[in-house]
């Protein structure tokens, strides 16, 4: 630099600023105000989010926790041979011909006897009212028990049966004496009888394990509906998704990130993967319907089809997060490995992949959680059907995961469609189950990430 240019620079430079540091000038005040405004916006945004979450969780818990409790009635039932096994041979094939229509009156009689012997007298209580306390499901329960143990015929057995949905609702605040006046399905006299039975200890409300294990039930018996089939179906689908999406996704991302040449084709593939991640899930449902059911001829409602559709949907998520995880591994590690003479594949599998594993696992589990909660594509491939049979993991006719089933989110959707308010409670309960599964998966993701990150 010559002296001339130095002088020119000095003349254009601003004069040194004067003023006390203890006094903020206008510009500083403005900047500080802008900063505190921004902080306030941020806080407000978080507050809105937290409030929304609290409202959501309280409303779901408020509506759904009661699904985990159920009212039961304990009865002594006579099982006369004359009605249940006329032949007297205890031959199962013959006994199976006796339908629940025969068992129903036995239960009604058992309850009537109990009411009579306890000396409960309620004005306007008819015999039909008494039998109405018992769930329609109870007859099937009793029949199953007799068929499982034919020796019971001719004896008097003690059995705990489900109370009907309205009576159960009375103890959960859904049915009241006032609402019963207007309701053709329940009378105030029945509610009074229920109270009397509860006082005597015959009617109890306790934890309902059947909600998690029982299959779905028809519109008239919400008290018997459970999530067993849906949980099984969801589990099968998650297995299919994990087994297919993780290896395919990780292999695809490793190839794209580490091996593929950077050219127009890989750019095109990259753009398409990003776009696929944003495709509405119902589109994948249509695709699944067209390819897996109509073209490949797989059975509708089968977990294998649901799993395949969800795999397609989860793949972009897994690929994107895996590529991000691979990208975040410092290139110096690859250089180091190549520098000692490792092949590209050795560099990737010995050094890059272990470092990227936490990110890959997190992405995979987030993808799985997304798939677990997905409803729309499953509606299109028929998983919304009413299924009462537990699907087997493998059957000779339908193959692996080929038997019809439902899934957790679809079950929620299904139950919210039904008229009986008791199903609303069931739907909220199912949401709680779904959320618990999601929380467990996220916890697993966090634990795995911590574990892998500890290896420096």
């Amino acid at each position, binding site marked *: 630099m010559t002296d001339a240019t130095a002088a020119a620079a000095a003349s254009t430079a601003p004069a040194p600023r004067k003023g006390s540091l203890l006094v903020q000038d206008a510009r500083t005040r403005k900047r500080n105000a802008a900063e505190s405004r921004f902080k306030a916006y941020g806080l407000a945004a978080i507050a809105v989010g937290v409030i929304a979450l609290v409202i959501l969780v309280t409303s779901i818990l408020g509506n759904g926790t009661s699904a985990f409790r159920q009212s039961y009635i304990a009865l002594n039932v006579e099982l006369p041979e004359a009605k249940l096994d006329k032949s007297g041979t205890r031959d199962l094939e013959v006994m199976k011909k006796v339908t629940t229509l025969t068992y129903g009156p036995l239960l009604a009689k058992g309850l009537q006897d109990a009411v009579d012997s306890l000396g409960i007298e309620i004005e306007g209580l008819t015999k039909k009212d008494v039998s109405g306390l018992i769930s329609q499901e109870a007859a099937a329960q009793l029949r199953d028990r007799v068929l499982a143990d034919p020796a019971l015929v001719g004896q008097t057995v003690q059995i705990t049966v489900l109370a009907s949905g309205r009576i159960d609702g009375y103890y959960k605040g859904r049915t009241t004496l006032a609402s019963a006046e207007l309701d053709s399905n329940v009378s105030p006299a029945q509610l009074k009888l229920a109270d009397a039975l509860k006082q005597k200890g015959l009617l109890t409300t306790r934890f309902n394990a059947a909600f998690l294990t029982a299959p779905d039930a028809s519109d008239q018996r919400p008290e018997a509906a459970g999530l067993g089939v849906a949980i099984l179906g969801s589990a099968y689908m998650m297995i299919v998704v994990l087994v297919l999406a993780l290896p395919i996704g990780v292999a695809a991302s490793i190839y794209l990130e580490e091996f593929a040449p950077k050219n127009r084709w890989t750019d095109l593939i990259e753009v398409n993967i990003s776009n696929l991640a944003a495709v509405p899930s119902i589109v994948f449902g249509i695709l699944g319907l067209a390819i897996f059911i109509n073209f490949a001829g797989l059975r509708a409602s089968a977990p294998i089809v649901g799993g395949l559709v969800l795999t397609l949907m989860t793949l972009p998520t897994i690929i994107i997060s895996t590529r991000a995880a691979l990208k975040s591994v410092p290139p110096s590690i690859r*250089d180091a490995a190549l*520098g000692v003479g490792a092949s590209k594949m050795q560099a990737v599998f010995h050094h890059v992949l272990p470092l990227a594993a936490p990110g890959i696992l997190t992405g995979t589990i987030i993808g799985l959680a997304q798939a677990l909660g997905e409803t729309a594509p499953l509606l299109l491939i028929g998983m919304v059907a009413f299924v009462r049979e537990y699907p087997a993991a493998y059957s000779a006719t339908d193959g692996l995961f080929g038997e019809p089933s439902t899934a957790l989110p679809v079950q929620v959707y299904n139950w919210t469609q039904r008229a009986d308010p008791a199903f609303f409670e069931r739907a909220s309960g199912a949401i709680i189950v779904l959320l618990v599964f999601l929380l467990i998966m996220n916890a697993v993701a966090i634990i795995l990430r911590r574990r892998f990150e500890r290896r*420096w």
Partner: protein
Amino acid sequence: MDDLRILERDVTTQSNKITARGVDVFYGEAHAIKSVDVDILDKTVTAFIGPSGCGKSTFLRCLNRMNDTIDICRVTGDIKLDGENIYDPKVDSVQLRAKVGMVFQKPNPFPKSIYDNVAYGPKIHGLTRNKAELDEVVETSLRKAAIWNEVKDRLNAPGTGLSGGQQQRLCIARAIATSPEVLLMDEPCSALDPIATAQVEELIDELRSQFSVVIVTHSMQQAARVSQRTAFFHLGSLVEYGETGQIFTAPKDPRTESYITGRIG
């Protein structure tokens, strides 16, 4: 056959290890290295000096084909290691890199134990038959890299937990564990303090008895201290190459003189 070559090397020290003729490197459109001819001698420390961006690191990375990992990089010309063209299509870059080891600017130990860092190379090349031999290779490599005494009690501790200077010496141990014939060092001391630098320089001088060492450095003092031969690069061309003493005391090219006296760069 290996033994023969060692014998041969013993009698003819100062023979050419690497000969580069007419090497051009392009990064896409940019012409990074322009027609460089260099002979790198065996059992000699050769220093590449020059201002930032002059292509000395790029040229160094040509010598073990590390530039292959950069998609847009294209190398033309001849680089021969012991008379064999390393850019011949028949040459596997993995085999080449086992012969031509490299130490990088930033210490980059694997996030594994100190032992595994050094043992990795011998393991993937199958240089040892059993654990005892591997242990021996690890120990001798760490000893040669002058870090054995500091880490012998914690071989299972993470390599990334060492100090910067120790990490760099660990990386040198890792590079020499595969018994390379040439060791490339890309500004190995730029991230180190003066004490660690002195240790690494001393180490480079000792390594000269077994390897041909090529070192890229920004520090002319360092080049003067450790090298026997010096090459001065400027704007992608090799300006001057000769005995270190001659380059620093009686440079032939005016650009070399300007650089070493601090007027360009």
